[in-house]
């Protein structure tokens, strides 16, 4: 039984006990706010990652050497001993992929190095060496800020190209001129010949482009400890599906007959996997938010119980004037729903504000999630009804005579 005057009444009685109302609201605001913030941050992260994926292109396959495990089924005679010590993929074999597999337009194998890196005797933090080919720049959608990238003529050279983070580090260490600076990798000195532009974090790349020191792959294979090509980025030719290209590569690797196997990941798979992860994330965060909502709801229930006790006489008067039990219950339910809706409203503002801030500092693109807002309104409504029902019922069951006599 909702009467327009009930709404006015509810607002008025909530205003009459402002302090208590505000205190009860805090719980709801935090609860709804965190649900909203978490759900919409989840959405933002998801959209951001997908955006970066799309930026990289969906025609990129990642080919990785498979360690351990058995060979793919249908390959009898795969050497069982191969497990950890499978023969390395040879550079020439990899570079031959585009000519042997028509579905692959270009490949960019890479090899990762480790060890101390220093400049002018000072250790450089947060950077890591990588051996690459000339095709690496294009396939990974990197661009040059200064100088040039490594070319096929740089085989076995001691040249390197650095990411923007490394460049900043060098400047911090006092490099007046980036190009021509000498960086020490282990026992070798490398001359900087180029700097790549800064790349936003995340996405499909399996490395942090800004923190890389690129050397030619032939150099890398020679100077890095235990160097082995582990990851190849390949661009699929126009008009070939990712699956077809993958099959060609699989067949080619198998035809080498050395028991080598590779794992090939397409962007679709990574996106699907990521979406699944995000879904779990969102659910988990939603659950955490729900717990704070229960706490907020108990706060609402408490306020409503106090309100019912304080207004026993009012309840008695209303009952004497003809209010049915349902009217009284409705009145208090409306109050608790309005209470939690107000909390929900502030919570939505708080949550959106928080997710905006998070997005701002993480340099993600902010996106307003309408489903989160709907969720906030819906959930606060439900909290109001759920936690308001018991006090409202208590109010409706008061004996009018007893209620009238109380003060």
């Amino acid at each position, binding site marked *: 039984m909702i009467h327009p005057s009930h709404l006015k009444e509810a607002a008025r009685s909530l205003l009459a006990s402002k302090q208590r109302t505000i205190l009860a609201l805090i719980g709801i605001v935090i609860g709804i706010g965190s649900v909203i913030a978490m759900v919409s941050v989840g959405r933002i992260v998801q959209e951001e990652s997908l955006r970066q994926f799309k930026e990289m292109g969906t025609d990129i396959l990642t080919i990785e050497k498979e360690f351990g495990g058995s060979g793919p089924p249908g390959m009898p005679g795969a050497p069982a001993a191969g497990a950890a010590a499978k023969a390395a993929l040879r550079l020439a074999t990899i570079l031959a992929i585009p000519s042997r597999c028509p579905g692959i337009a270009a490949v960019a194998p890479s090899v990762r190095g480790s060890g101390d890196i220093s400049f002018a005797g000072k250790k450089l933090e947060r950077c890591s060496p990588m051996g690459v080919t000339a095709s690496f720049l294009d396939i990974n959608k990197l661009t040059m800020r200064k100088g040039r990238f490594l070319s096929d003529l740089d085989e076995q050279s001691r040249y390197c190209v650095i990411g923007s983070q490394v460049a900043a580090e060098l400047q911090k260490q006092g490099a007046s001129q980036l190009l021509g600076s000498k960086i020490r990798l282990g026992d070798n000195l490398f001359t900087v010949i180029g700097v790549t532009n800064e790349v936003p974090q995340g996405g499909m790349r399996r490395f942090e482009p800004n923190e890389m020191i690129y050397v030619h792959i032939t150099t890398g294979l020679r100077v890095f400890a235990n160097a082995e090509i582990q990851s190849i980025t390949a661009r699929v030719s126009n008009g070939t599906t990712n699956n077809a290209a993958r099959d060609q590569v699989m067949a080619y690797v198998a035809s080498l007959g050395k028991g080598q196997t590779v794992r090939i990941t397409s962007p679709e798979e990574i996106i699907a996997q990521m979406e699944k992860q995000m879904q779990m994330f969102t659910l988990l965060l939603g659950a955490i938010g729900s717990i704070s909502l229960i706490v907020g709801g108990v706060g609402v229930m408490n306020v409503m119980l106090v309100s019912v006790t304080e207004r026993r006489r009012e309840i008695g*008067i209303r009952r*004497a004037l003809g209010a049915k039990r349902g009217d009284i219950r409705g009145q208090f339910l409306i109050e608790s729903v309005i209470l939690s809706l107000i909390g929900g409203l502030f919570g939505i503002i708080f949550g959106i504000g928080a997710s905006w801030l998070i997005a701002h500092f993480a340099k993600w693109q902010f996106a307003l999630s309408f489903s989160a807002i709907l969720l906030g309104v819906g959930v606060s409504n439900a909290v109001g009804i759920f936690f308001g029902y018991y006090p409202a019922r208590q109010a409706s069951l008061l004996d009018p005579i007893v209620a009238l006599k109380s003060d």
Partner: protein
Amino acid sequence: MLTLRDIRKSYRIGPTEVEVLKGVSLEIQQGELVSIMGQSGCGKSTLMNIIGLLDRPTSGSFMLDGAEVSYSNDDTLSEIRNQRIGFVFQQYFLLSRLTALENVALPLVYRGDKGTNSHERCMELLKRVGMADRAQHRPNELSGGQQQRVAIARALVGNPSLILADEPTGALDTNVGGEIMELFKTLNAEEGITVVIITHDPGIARQCKRVAVMKDGVILS
């Protein structure tokens, strides 16, 4: 219009059962101005609660406008209170957050009245009790007598067949109490509204056309 026959009411207090009303029979005609008088503890409040349908008798029959009402369910009792009984209480019992006008309109809210002409109806009644100029005042801005006038307007707003007043002058000084009694008398004389006043004050009771004296749970005369 109102017939009580052998109404009994007992309360259980711990192991003992206390009979507060021991067979009250009373008949009140349409348009009467009756007072039910008695010392405190004689059971008149209990009787008033039963007449006002706020409580049910343990046994006996209560006919209102020719229909047995005492044993109806809670919702029906609420409806009858709302439609046919106007309450006036000793402590006025206005809702402090509402204006005089809104207080008067309160019974109409529970009729599912959409409020189209309720405003006019309420103003008319405030005028009737001499409170039209205070319509927008809240109870704490009004004197006791003024509050009781507003309460009377509220009792009248639903066009009840019975006004039930419980010590309506009990919290007022003699002069103001007299004015309130005059108002009851006028309403009774001019509009033929049935008024039942419960009081312990013989002075008040004497102003009514008929006095029912209660003692120890029964009506003496």
